[in-house]
C-alpha cells in the first residue's frame, strides 16, 4: 500500500516539476526568444535557440486552466472544458475501434508469419514499409474509398470508420511485430519437450507459444494504443471529421493570436486521452498477470 502511495506521490511530483519548469522558464527566458546569427534588417534570419516566452507563445498555466472554464466560443456556448471532454471521448471511442481492428489484424499477421516462414519473408518487409507511408498521404485515400463505399449504398461507411481504419493502420504494426517475436520466444528446450509429447501445432500454440508471448504482447498493445490515439487525431484533421479532439485543436489554434490560451484546452484533452488509453491497456496487463513472470517488475 505504501509503495503505491509513493508511486502516486512521485507521479504528482513529476507533473508539478513540469508546471514549475514551464513557469520558471517563462519568468527567466527572453520574451522574444534568443536568436543567434541574426543579420540586422533581415527578418527571420538566424536560428532561434531559446523559444519565446511571451503570452502568445507560452500562456501562464493559470490562464490556460482559467480558459477551460470560460465560454468556448463566446455567446452562450458552454465552458471550454465541456467540448474538450466530449471531443476527447469521441476520439477515444474511435481510437478504441482502431485499436481493436489493429490488434486483430496485427495478431493475425503475427500468427501467420510465425506459422510459415515464407509468409514472414514475404510480409514482414511490406509491414515495415507500410509504416513509412506518410499518414497525411494515406488518410485522404482511405476517406475517399470510404465515401465511395458509403455512396454505393450496400454497406454504410460513416466517416468515423475511416478515421478508425487509419488509426488501426498505425496500431497494427507493433502488434504484428510483437506477436511474431513473442511466439518465437519459447526456448528450444521447451519446444522439444512439446514435441516429445507429440503435441501438434495448435496445442503448442495454446500451451506454450501464446503464454510465452504475453510479455512481448503487452508493450506492443500499449504502443498500439498510443499509435491509435495519434492516428485518430491526425486522421480527424486530415479528413475533416467533426467532433473529435484533432479538429478542435486545429480550429482553436487558428485563433491563437487573439486567444492564446484556448488551443491548450484540447491539448490537455489529448494528453488525458493518451493517459486513459495507456491506462486501459494496463488493465489488460493486470488480467494477464499470471503470464508475466519473465517481465521486470511493473
Amino acid at each position: 500500500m505504501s509503495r503505491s502511495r509513493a508511486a502516486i506521490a512521485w507521479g504528482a511530483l513529476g507533473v508539478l516539476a513540469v508546471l514549475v519548469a514551464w513557469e520558471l522558464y517563462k519568468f527567466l527566458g527572453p520574451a522574444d526568444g534568443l536568436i543567434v546569427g541574426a543579420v540586422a534588417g533581415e527578418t527571420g534570419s538566424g536560428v532561434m535557440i531559446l523559444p519565446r516566452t511571451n503570452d502568445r507563445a507560452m500562456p501562464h498555466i493559470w490562464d490556460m486552466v482559467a480558459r477551460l472554464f470560460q465560454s468556448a466560443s463566446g455567446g452562450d456556448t458552454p465552458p471550454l472544458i465541456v467540448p474538450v471532454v466530449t471531443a476527447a471521448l469521441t476520439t477515444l471511442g474511435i481510437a478504441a475501434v482502431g485499436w481493436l481492428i489493429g490488434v486483430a489484424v496485427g495478431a493475425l499477421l503475427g500468427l501467420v508469419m510465425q506459422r510459415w516462414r515464407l509468409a514472414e519473408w514475404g510480409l514482414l518487409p511490406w509491414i515495415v514499409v507500410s509504416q513509412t507511408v506518410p499518414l497525411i498521404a494515406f488518410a485522404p485515400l482511405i476517406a475517399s474509398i470510404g465515401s465511395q463505399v458509403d455512396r454505393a449504398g450496400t454497406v454504410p461507411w460513416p466517416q468515423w470508420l475511416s478515421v478508425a481504419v487509419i488509426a488501426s493502420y498505425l496500431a497494427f504494426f507493433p502488434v504484428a511485430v510483437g506477436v511474431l517475436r513473442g511466439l518465437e520466444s519459447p526456448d528450444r528446450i521447451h519446444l522439444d519437450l512439446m514435441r516429445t509429447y507429440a503435441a501438434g501445432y495448435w496445442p503448442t500454440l495454446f500451451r506454450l507459444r501464446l503464454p510465452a508471448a504475453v510479455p512481448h504482447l503487452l508493450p506492443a498493445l500499449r504502443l498500439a494504443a498510443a499509435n491509435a490515439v495519434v492516428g485518430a487525431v491526425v486522421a480527424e484533421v486530415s479528413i475533416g471529421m467533426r467532433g473529435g479532439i484533432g479538429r478542435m485543436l486545429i480550429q482553436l489554434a487558428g485563433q491563437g493570436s487573439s486567444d492564446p490560451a484556448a488551443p491548450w484546452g484540447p491539448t490537455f484533452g489529448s494528453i488525458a486521452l493518451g493517459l486513459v488509453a495507456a491506462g486501459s491497456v494496463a488493465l489488460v496487463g493486470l488480467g494477464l498477470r499470471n503470464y508475466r513472470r519473465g517481465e521486470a517488475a511493473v
Partner: protein
Amino acid sequence: MRHSTRRGLTVASVAAATAIALAACSAPAPDTGTDTGDFEPITSIKLQLQWLPQAQFAGYYVALDQGYFEDEGFDTVDIVPSGGDIVPQDALVAGDVDFAVAWVPKVLGTLEATGAELTDIAQVYQKSGTLQVSFKGDGVSSVSDFEGKRIGSWGFGNEWEIFAAMAAEDLDSTSVSITTQDFSMNALLDGDVDAAQAMTYNEWAQILEVVNPATGKLYQPEDFDVVSYEDTDGAMLQDALWADTKRLEDPAYADAAVRFLKAVTKGWIFARDNPEQAAEITYNAAINAEAAFPVGPVHQLWQMNEVNKLIWAGGPFGLVDQAAWDKTVKGALAAVNQDGLNLITAEPADSAYSNTYIQKALDELAADGVVVDGAYTPIDVTLTEGGQ
C-alpha cells in the same frame, strides 16, 4: 520451430496482396448521367466549403436555416466544412460532393494539372479580400516594397495573388522570401515575417482583436500598413461555386444547379439585408450542428460585414464578370512562384466558367420580385479582445 514451406500458400498470399493492391488502385468510374428528356429531380445534395463554418459562408447556412433549399425542392443539403486538408475542387472531381466553394486561381491550377473539368457557375465574391499586413514603419506599404522582404503566406494556393502582383510590377519572385505562416497572426506579431497575409474578413479582424502591449488597448488599423490585392494587378477572383462540367450535361444535375443557385442567392440576399441575423445564424450553425469552434459572435459580425462588401459590388449576385475573370487568368498566367513554377501555362477551357445557370436562377428570382442586384450598406462593427 519448423517452418512449413508450402509454396501454394505463398502463391495464394502473393495473389491476395496483389488483389488488394489492385483494388486500392482502381477507383470506381464516376457515374455519368446519360438519360435525356425527363428526369428525376435531385433532392439531396452536398456542398463542400473550403474552410471552417464561419460568416464567410453565411449565405449557405442562411439558405439552410431559412428553408430556402427546401423551397427549391431539396430535402437534404449537407454543407461539408473543410479543416484545410479537404481540397474542395478535389472533393468535387472525386464525386464526394455535388458543388464546391473554391477560389478561382486554385481551381484553375488544379484543372490544368489534372485535366479535370469543373465550371464556375456563380462568382459569389466579386472582389479579392486578401491583404498583406505589416507594422507601420517597416516599409512595406506597396507591392514594390516586397523585394528583399520576408512575406508571409498560407501557401496551398493562397500565395498566387502575391506572385501575380509582383509579376505586374516586374519584380522577380525569387527576390522575396515567402514564408509559410499558420492560420493565426503570430508570425507578424512575433516579427517572423515583415508582412503577413490576411483576409479582410478574418485574420485582419483577428489582429485587431489583440491587445497592443505598447498601449494596453487593442491594435488599431493605423498601427499597420495594408496592401489590398484588390487594388493591384494581382487581384484574383475568390469564393466561387463550382460544378462538375461533364455532369452538367445531365439535365437533372443542371436543373439542380439552377435550383441550388436560387436558394444560395436568396441566402446571400438575406445576409445582405440582415447582416446581424445572418452572422448569428451562421455562428449558431457553427457551434451547434457543426460542432465547430468559431471565433466569437463579434468576429462573425465583422466577417459578415466585410464579406458583404466583397459580394455586392454593384452588379447582380454571382455573375462572372468577364473583365475580372480575364484579369484573374492573366495574373495566373503571369505569376511565377519562388521555385520558378507557373500556376497555369495555358488559358483555361471555355467551360471553366458559365453564367448560364446563375443567369437562369437570377431571372427566375427576378420574376418572383426578388431584388438580385441590391447594394450593401456597410455597418459599423467594434471589435473586442478575442472577438467574443
